[in-house]
């Protein structure tokens, strides 16, 4: 569970840079032709990272060398150049391939579980660990053992345990 939770959490964390990249995209000024071209190329790049290549193993279309992915990238480039928004292009592919085509599921409905469960599970595990370690009557806690050793006069950590060396010394003394 911890491993899968970590993997999912990593997936959530990986969305942060993507959002950070999105921010300048939205605020880019289309006034200058070069800025507009750069903005378009950035939108193509982002969509290429977001969309899954249908004929590959979990690869984004922007990184896949397959002819199908190249054709999809070409279509994305044309749609962006034609003035279609990022959402509209994403919706076009979702309409044809389903949400499967999105490498990061949309944060809505049942998908929220993917984003909420891992931190929730980690939080619960943390709480349980803290409560377990802080339990006063925990029999195997280091403090409890040391206190018991002090009371009985045993060597630290040897309370109630047969010590073969001690027994051997006692046998030698008895001779």
């Amino acid at each position, binding site marked *: *569970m911890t491993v899968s939770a970590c993997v999912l959490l990593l997936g959530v964390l990986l969305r942060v840079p993507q959002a950070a990249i999105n921010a300048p995209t939205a605020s880019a000024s289309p006034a200058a032709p070069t800025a507009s071209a750069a903005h378009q190329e950035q939108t193509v790049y982002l969509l290429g990272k977001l969309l899954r290549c*249908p004929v590959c193993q979990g690869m984004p279309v922007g990184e896949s060398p397959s002819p199908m992915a190249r054709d999809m990238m*070409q279509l994305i480039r044309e749609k962006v150049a034609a003035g279609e928004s990022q959402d509209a292009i994403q919706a076009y592919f979702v*309409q044809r391939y389903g949400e499967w085509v999105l490498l990061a599921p949309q944060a809505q409905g049942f998908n929220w579980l993917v984003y909420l469960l891992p931190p929730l599970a980690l939080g619960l595990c943390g709480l349980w660990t803290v409560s377990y370690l802080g339990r006063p009557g925990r029999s195997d806690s280091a403090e409890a053992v040391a206190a018991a050793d002090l009371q009985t006069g045993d060597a630290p950590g040897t309370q109630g345990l047969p010590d073969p060396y001690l027994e051997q010394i006692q046998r030698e003394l008895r001779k």
Partner: protein
Amino acid sequence: MSLRLRYALFTALLVVPLLGVLALGFGQDPHAVPSMLEGHDAPPFVLKSLEGETFDLQKLHGKPVVLNFWATWCYPCKAEHAALQAAARHYSTAVQFLGVVYQDTPETAKDYLRAQTSVFANLVDPHARMAIDYGVAGVPESYFISPQGRIVYKHAGVLDTMLLQRILDPLVLQAETMRKSGAPL
């Protein structure tokens, strides 16, 4: 509640949902791409065949259409070739069969078809525009379009005669009923 019971409950709370997710995942084909266009209007296309004839989906309304995406490098496509040709001969003009050459060159497709018997036209799909429009995720994939122009079924994988008959017989019947009743398409 005893400590042992609490441990058991805690473990069950963690393990049972995880097992559920795993069972759900293992029960599905990870390569299967969902079919989103079933029940929706087939995306329109106007494409040329390998022989240069133009095919417009709009003009085919009124009869069932079978679109078969294939390639010469695809062995399952070759495996279903005979069944498709037999079905095309059986239904003759009642059903429009169309092959769509996928990620392949027209020359290679022509060479292959020259050695085979092909009774229906095969379309050239530049830059896989039609394939993307139909949500194709590999070959062979076949789309069955109703006389009204709606995608009624998508089949990913090799087709056989029984399956073709099971899907096409009701569509042919539907087209005949519409023609007799003069219902608008």
